[in-house]
């Protein structure tokens, strides 16, 4: 933690960054995001096992971009993968972000493309145990059981779009849900509207989602919607040997193709 303070102090002092996005003490022993802009505020930063939420989502917010790049971010491996994917999708460029990572209790600043990619590759996705459980649970289900499972789960959804706000890769200024000519996604949270929203969200993240889990954490009614994007990304990994978030100039899996893509269902 002390190392982080020194580093933050140094970055702000040399005006290397305009703001440092980190974790600070929240209410009831929880941590919350903090945006450090002055030297005095540096002491607010904390860094312990509670700090798991993906802070990269704030890099897309105009309010933060207003401060001007470069910006420092206290990062978990998921955050680094997100930043690499955002660079691949031309939302950020190399040098916009100073990524502070913790490696066996020393704090390193990653800026260059090679360091980011190398760090992302060395720290692949590790699902927490309960997620793995759920994935296995669904794998064993028959198609009918999965249908009822998802009907029940999705029935809870009331279209608050918290998942969209929490996801760092959902950065469209005008989302498909805002398009009403034609009305691609019905607004009301009835089965039609909910089904259309979650299918589109999963398809939009296929081959892009870096599985940080923020969407499930953000969902107020606790629907395990991360499972949908995890499944979508699994297909892309297995079928097209493409892993998102490890290559700064990788094209998106779904907007490219290989002539010998395998499939078993086209007649």
């Amino acid at each position: 933690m002390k190392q982080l303070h020194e580093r933050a102090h140094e970055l702000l002092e040399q005006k290397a960054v305009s703001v440092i996005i980190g974790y600070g003490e929240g209410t009831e022993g929880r941590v919350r995001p903090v945006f450090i802009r002055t030297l005095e505020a540096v002491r607010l930063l904390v860094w312990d096992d509670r700090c798991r939420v993906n802070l990269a989502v704030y890099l897309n917010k105009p309010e933060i971009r207003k401060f001007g790049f470069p910006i420092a971010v206290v990062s978990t491996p998921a955050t680094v993968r997100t930043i690499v994917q955002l660079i691949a999708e031309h939302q950020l460029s190399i040098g916009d972000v100073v990524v502070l990572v913790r490696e066996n209790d020393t704090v390193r600043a990653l800026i260059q493309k090679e360091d980011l990619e190398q760090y992302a590759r060395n720290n692949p996705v590790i699902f927490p145990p309960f997620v793995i459980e759920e994935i296995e649970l669904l794998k064993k289900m028959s198609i009918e059981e999965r249908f009822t499972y998802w009907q029940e789960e999705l029935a809870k959804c009331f279209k608050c779009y918290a998942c969209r706000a929490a996801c760092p890769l959902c950065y469209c200024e005008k989302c498909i849900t805002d398009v009403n000519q034609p009305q691609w996604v019905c607004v009301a949270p009835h089965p039609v509207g909910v089904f259309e929203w979650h299918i589109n969200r999963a398809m939009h993240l296929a081959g892009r989602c870096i599985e940080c889990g923020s969407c499930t954490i953000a969902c107020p009614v606790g629907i395990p919607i991360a499972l949908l994007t995890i499944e979508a990304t699994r297909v892309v990994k297995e079928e097209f040997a493409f892993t998102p978030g490890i290559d700064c100039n990788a094209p998106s899996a779904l907007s490219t193709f290989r002539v010998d893509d395998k499939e078993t269902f086209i007649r």
Partner: protein
Amino acid sequence: MKEFEPKIVAFVCNWCTYAGADLTGTSRIHYAPNVRVVRFPCTGRIDYNLIIKAFERGADGVIVSGCHPNDCHYTSGNFHARRRWIVFRTLLEYIGIDPRRIIFSWVSAAEGAKWADLVNKAVREIRELGPAKEFINMKQWYEFEKALGGFRG
């Protein structure tokens, strides 16, 4: 009750499958009447949202067909489409929708007989599957939206 007649919509590409269907016509090959064709310039243009819309509004089955790989008039539309179909189909199956309701195929402009055969087979398979039960309760909500009057479809 009259035997269940499935309603099937076919999303086809203009250069190959639509022309193949034309050839079925000029060769006067009869086939089941349950299919309605929607013409796209290329399979690359077929949006998965339209497949969802069709099911929600009452389709029991959807055929999606275009040029064989390397035949595409736009060189790579079908390759892009194939990649999307692989992901979309797995996602539907994951969420519990029977993937056999969507029939993907390549039909070239010279395969008139194959088109007729594809339609007949599709009608037979969807008839066995019965009405699209996964979307039953969605249809009534669509009626609810219409009743609100705000829905311009």
